[in-house]
């Protein structure tokens, strides 16, 4: 968390978003009236059961998808098409397999029409910030999952977005790698010289949300509404063994399971966080990467 106390300008206003999808039997309502704010210096996590439209919500925020009704405002202006001030990190990494790491990181900069010299300098900076030095000319398929997601992160940070959107960024990684990368993302976030000004993280992992976010938006089962907006004031670095952490976990867990009929996958995500923070704090080993776990949440 950065120390600009008192400055709480609202960056993003999500106002009564509804989203329907056409289906065989009329339309299906995915999101049914979701509102929340993301302020400057906010790290917001959006959690909810699988299939509740969290990822769709994120896409609507950037303007990749249009809501059926409602409005997203960025710095007071409605988002009507893809917003250039935001950048997304994807669950599946979404790197172009035929571009080198360098070219992948430059992807958004080329689109913004930067000069080659500026692109080079910027790419070098974010490659070193994300710990990818030495892999510039490699191709994504030659990297482990953890390293690939660093590329995804570098690509997003390189365009220096005001808001970083992260769509389940750690759920295709194994538990240890995810732990390490989470820690690094928090370090980058704490660095006042680096973008972004705010982060919106979508996850189904309650513990992940509690470890990272200042504010947790809890969505219900589909069609989703906001069950609660929970501020997290635990001191950083957060100790997941503390009583306060336990209490909050329990609270969020019961909120999600009781708000949703049937057992949600959020409960299953709990044991993943039982590794001690120290174990995963170091640099990520690129070699040990189990296959990405399939995740149907969308």
């Amino acid at each position, binding site marked *: 968390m950065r120390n600009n106390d008192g400055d709480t300008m609202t960056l993003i206003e999500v106002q009564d978003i509804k989203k329907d999808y056409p289906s065989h039997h009329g339309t299906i309502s995915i999101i049914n009236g979701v509102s929340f704010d993301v302020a400057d210096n906010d790290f917001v996590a959006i959690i909810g059961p699988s299939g509740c439209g969290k990822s769709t919500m994120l896409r609507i925020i950037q303007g990749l998808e249009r809501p059926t009704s409602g409005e997203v405002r960025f710095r007071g202006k409605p988002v009507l098409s893809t917003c250039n001030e935001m950048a997304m990190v994807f669950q599946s990494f979404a790197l172009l397999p035929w571009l080198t790491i360098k070219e992948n990181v430059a992807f958004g900069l080329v689109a913004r029409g930067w000069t080659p010299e500026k692109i080079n300098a910027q790419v070098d900076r974010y490659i070193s910030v994300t710990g990818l030095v030495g892999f510039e000319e490699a191709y994504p398929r030659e990297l*482990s999952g953890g390293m690939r997601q660093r590329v995804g992160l570098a690509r997003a940070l390189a365009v220096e977005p005001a808001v970083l959107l992260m769509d389940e960024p750690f759920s295709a990684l194994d538990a240890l790698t995810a732990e390490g990368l989470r820690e690094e993302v928090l370090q980058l976030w704490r660095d006042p010289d680096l973008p972004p000004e705010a982060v919106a993280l979508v996850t189904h992992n309650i513990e992940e949300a509690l470890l990272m976010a200042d504010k947790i938006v809890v969505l219900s089962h589909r069609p989703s509404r906001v069950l609660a907006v929970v501020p997290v004031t635990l001191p950083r670095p957060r100790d997941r063994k503390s009583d306060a952490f336990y209490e909050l976990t329990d609270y969020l867990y019961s909120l999600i399971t009781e708000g949703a009929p049937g057992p949600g996958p959020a409960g299953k995500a709990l044991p993943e966080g039982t590794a001690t923070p120290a174990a995963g704090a170091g640099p990520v080993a690129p070699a040990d990467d189990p296959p*990405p776990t399939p995740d149907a949440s969308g």
Partner: protein
Amino acid sequence: MMKQLSPMRRGLVVAGPALIAAGAALLLGPGTGNWGFLRDLPQATYYLSFSFVRMIVAYALSLGFSLVYGYFAATNRGAERVLIPILDILQSVPILGFFPVAIAVFISIPYIGINLASIFLIFTSMAWNMVFGVYESLKSIPGDLREASDSFGVRGWQRLRQVLIPATINRLVYNSVLSWTGGWFFLVAAEFIASSRSTVALPGIGSYLLYAAGAGNGSALVAGLIVLIALITVLDLAVWRPLGRWAEKYRYDTTPSGDADAANAPARRVTAPLRRAVAGLARRVRTGFITASTPLVSLGTFALGRGTTRRRSFAALAGRYLALGSILIFSWYLLITAGVAIYSIYIHPIGAFALAQIRMIPYDLASSIGRLIAAYTLSLVIAFPLAYFLTHRPRAARIGLPLVEIVASVPATAIFPLIVFVVVLDIGRQATSVILLSTGMIWYLFFNLLSGMRSIPPDLDEAARSFGVKGGPYYRKVLLPAVFPAFITGSITALGGGWNTLIVAEYLSVSKTVQMPTGPVTTTHVVYQVPGIGQLIQAGFAENSAAVYVAALLALVVAVVVVNELLWKPLYRRAIEKYKYD
């Protein structure tokens, strides 16, 4: 990560053509003085160069065409609804039959006219397949890559260069292999057809082979086959395999690195461009058959019944087809009577002989279909056990598969002169034509069956073994159902190839005065023909009887479209529905 060819395989790939050549030399040995063909190599190479240039020009045209057509079909919904069904019809009609039309269109341009016609034909044999490659790869760009491009605001030139074009490269390379294989087939066939009229000359490897066979010049025949096979093999080793390795970069990686299977899979595929290419062919059938719906399909569904009501009695089914058949034959006669009347009045009176020929078309069509069925059966009887053997005997496959691939890469038409005029005429024309036809069909079946058998999930096999299922029940419950979709795809593509092959397998003629490249002027009257629709098309062209040609071509096209729409499409959809794994 990329595995190179083992020395043994590489040696085999090089030694293969030499082996075939030696075999051919031995076969023709007594008459030709064993190594006499060496003398003919330069001449054969000279003629081959004409053909090669035509291939390159046609390929360049196909490449440009496929990128533009595929792009529009994939990115514009309205265009897609029109372009894809057109493509589906185009790819299913036997384009060889249209070659005389192309000649008629281009012939007015002296010298290059006939070449243009030939290039046009080769183009039509190459392009559709590549268009499907471009279309499908653009359609199947993973959603997250699209979203990432949108999210970072990538559009215009950058999108084309960094996203869209790279996405097409992998399939384009493999479909190119297929296009070249098909292209050689049609190139040679076009030269045959042109040769049937003495006024038209299309110099190239095909006409060289035909003249050599017609004149009984065995050494020239061997020389021609050697240079052709050598060129195809060199292209495979020097162009397609390296290109295939390069194209691996443009593949989407769905498995994480470090996975042993993922590391080996690309290498395995790279070593077999042709096998990989056939997978592309299967996809093309799938796209054509599933995406492209024509009004006729609903008729087919009516005839065969919907996928959900499977238990329809055979008698009811046969009855429906019989009714449908009668309607079709009746409408054919109606159509032809009207057509002949209009043609006679407005264009040219049709002579009694030609009229008789036109009346006989349903009969010719029936005998051609009978021949196709015979050739298909023959191909299946050979291809199925061969594919089974090479799947279950990995060690035999290491040597056997590369050999089969070399043999399969030789265009079937190139060995027609050898078979017709030198080896097999003794066994009778009917049997000869069936053998010719099956050479044009067997590889589609073989490679599809092979990939079908190889892609049976190992755990399915293990489950069968674990429960002690073997013998008859194993074949009925595991192998045959698992292979069924590949079998149907193979059958469809084999029949597609068969319709084209018909045209040259029922009629081959060498013009009356032959100037052998290396000998004196000899006079021969060599026409080989069996009654059938393909023969009628070629004879119509050779004897300058436009009415017969047009009627026969029309009948062929209608027959192909009807069989595809009414038989294969419904069958295919059911096969896919019932037997897919996922």
